[in-house]
């Protein structure tokens, strides 16, 4: 519980992403934190890209919304980018 927030949010993102992909071992997540924002970058196996983005970005936006709520409860903002 004393881990930095960026680490904790990264764990949450990792849990959500890994639960949705077919190749959880290929999930790569990097997180950086500055005073107001946590920046995350996500890479998944090419065949999981569609699965994680979803129709019209539905899935990735749901993940972002949940991360934002978690970050907001700590008075922070979060950004999640998917690297293609």
């Amino acid at each position, binding site marked *: 519980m004393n881990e930095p927030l960026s680490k904790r949010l990264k764990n949450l993102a990792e849990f959500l992403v890994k*639960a949705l992909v077919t190749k959880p071992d290929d999930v790569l997540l990097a997180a950086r934190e500055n005073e107001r924002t946590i920046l995350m970058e996500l890479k998944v196996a090419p065949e999981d890209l569609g699965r994680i983005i979803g129709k019209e970005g*539905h899935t990735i*936006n749901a993940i972002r*919304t*949940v991360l934002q*709520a978690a970050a*907001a409860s*700590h008075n922070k903002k979060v950004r999640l980018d998917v690297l293609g």
Partner: protein
Amino acid sequence: MSVLEIEEKSLEEAIRVACERLKLPRELLEIEIISKGSSGIFGIVGAKKAKIRVRPKVPSFEHAAERAKEVLSYILEYVNLPTVVEAEARDDHVYLNIVSNGSGLLIGKKGQTLTALQYLVSRIISKELGRNIPVVVDAENYRARREKSLQDLARQLSAKVKRLKKPIATGPMNAQDRRIIHLALKDEPAVKTKSKGEGNMRRVVIYPVRAGGGSSRNNSRNSNR
């Protein structure tokens, strides 16, 4: 992920591997034995591997509700709010209610945080259980309040449509909200409803029904949600 074939030295071992790979206890697996396997003579000559075919059993909604509750509770551990999740297996979906301190944080703008949680929990447990499990996530009675205000909106719009004798569209709405509008006006003979538009821009259009002329068309009123 629905069907899996596993070959191992013994039946026991194969079943253990199946449980591990599907992350399910043995009771939730449907196991079909293809070959029992035998250790042969001295464990070398004529040794045959055991082979099974497994699939997740059609899971009970009670089990799905339990898992859904665990997944949602896990996600909420990352939110800095005191929360308790209540789960209920309903006829056609799993209902989860988040009891919290009354802040709207978990509801979000127009319920978008609840919708995102609900979508992700449903996707995660559907994948895990190998079957589509609809999930509804609620907090602070938001869904019921939202339903009430959408029904009020539907009634106001239908009154306006009748007065102006012109069709009126709602704002863009998700499927759940559109359904509430359609149902609210289902028994209103003077108007009919239809969903129009694509994807995120889909909305409900309420049309006036001309007196005497609309009876045959009324039958297909709710076909296009």
